[in-house]
């Protein structure tokens, strides 16, 4: 019996499975398994026959002999894992729509906890399309975590770069002859002294202090007066005060403060 347009309407579930099953025709690194869900074996066999005659590049088609735990029969396709395979799958889905009607397809994949709409760009993140590469959920999560960490480090690096300019500008009211920042350390020099301080944070006073959990009430009284006299001499109208293990540099004419720590 020849299948006609709309013959499988209301029999195919709008959920597609990708990479949730092991391929039979090769290794997962090279072969992707795509699964359609149908509500009975008869439409499953029809879909099998239809896809078996497709001109799409399909390595194998199978229909499950028994329903899964949700009561659905599955029609599995195996396709080559390669760049653009997701577009190929979308074209196959369009072919299926000839029989099943237009559906709002969503994809379940082991790399995502949630179903993702087939048209959603983020699907490219969760469907592995590189030949020879197939990450487990754990490896994928680890990779995503590392990528996020690199992104955050880059962001911090950019912020640090941006802060360098702001900090040097902040110190312009001081008596310093020279100030430079290198590798997170501030080196200050006036006519007779050189001091090096590790930069901890810079920004709006209350914000940066609360981010470090310090308060003005924690100003130390047992600090090294000679060192702070030296700092204050170098800073001119600006001030250095000791709070906990930090040296807080502030400018009375400025809302920002620079939190530093003496280098060992």
């Amino acid at each position, binding site marked *: *019996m020849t299948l006609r347009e709309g013959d499988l309407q209301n029999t195919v579930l709008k959920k597609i499975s990708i990479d949730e099953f092991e391929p039979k025709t090769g290794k997962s690194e090279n072969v992707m398994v795509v699964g359609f869900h149908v509500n*009975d*074996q*008869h439409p499953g*066999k029809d879909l*099998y*026959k239809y896809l*078996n005659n497709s001109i799409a590049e399909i390595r194998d088609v*199978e*229909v*499950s*002999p*028994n329903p899964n735990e949700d009561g659905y029969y599955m029609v599995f396709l195996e396709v080559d894992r390669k760049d653009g395979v997701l577009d190929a799958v979308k074209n196959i889905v369009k072919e299926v729509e000839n029989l099943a009607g237009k559906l709002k397809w969503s994809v379940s994949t082991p790399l995502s906890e949630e179903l993702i709409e087939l048209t959603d760009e983020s699907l490219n993140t969760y469907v592995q399309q590189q030949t020879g590469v197939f990450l487990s959920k754990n490896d994928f999560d680890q990779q995503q975590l590392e990528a996020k960490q690199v992104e955050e480090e880059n962001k911090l690096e950019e912020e640090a770069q941006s802060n360098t300019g702001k900090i040097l500008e902040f110190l312009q009211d001081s008596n310093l002859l020279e100030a430079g920042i290198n590798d997170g350390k501030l080196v200050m020099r006036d006519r007779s002294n050189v001091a090096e301080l590790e930069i901890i944070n810079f920004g709006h006073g209350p914000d940066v202090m609360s981010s470090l959990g310090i308060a003005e009430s924690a100003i130390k009284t047992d600090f090294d007066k000679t060192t702070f006299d030296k700092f204050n001499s170098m800073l001119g109208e600006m001030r250095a005060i000791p709070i906990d293990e930090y040296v807080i540099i502030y400018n009375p004419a400025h809302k920002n403060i620079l939190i530093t720590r003496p280098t060992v």
Partner: protein
Amino acid sequence: MKEIIDILEKHFGTDTPITPESHMIDDLNGDDFDVVDVVCQIEEALGITIPEEETMGLGTVQELITVVSAHVES
């Protein structure tokens, strides 16, 4: 009968001779998916439809031929 054997040979290969006594799972190294596959291919080739309940538990080639023949003759 020849068409059925041709489909089975194409599906399972010709390394193992296929006879009416051959069991599709035990002798031809198939599984339940393969049985459904060959039934689908036979249905398509012969233009017949075999109800699911008649294909459940199919094992040997002879059992397959018997089921298919009933639909070809009817």
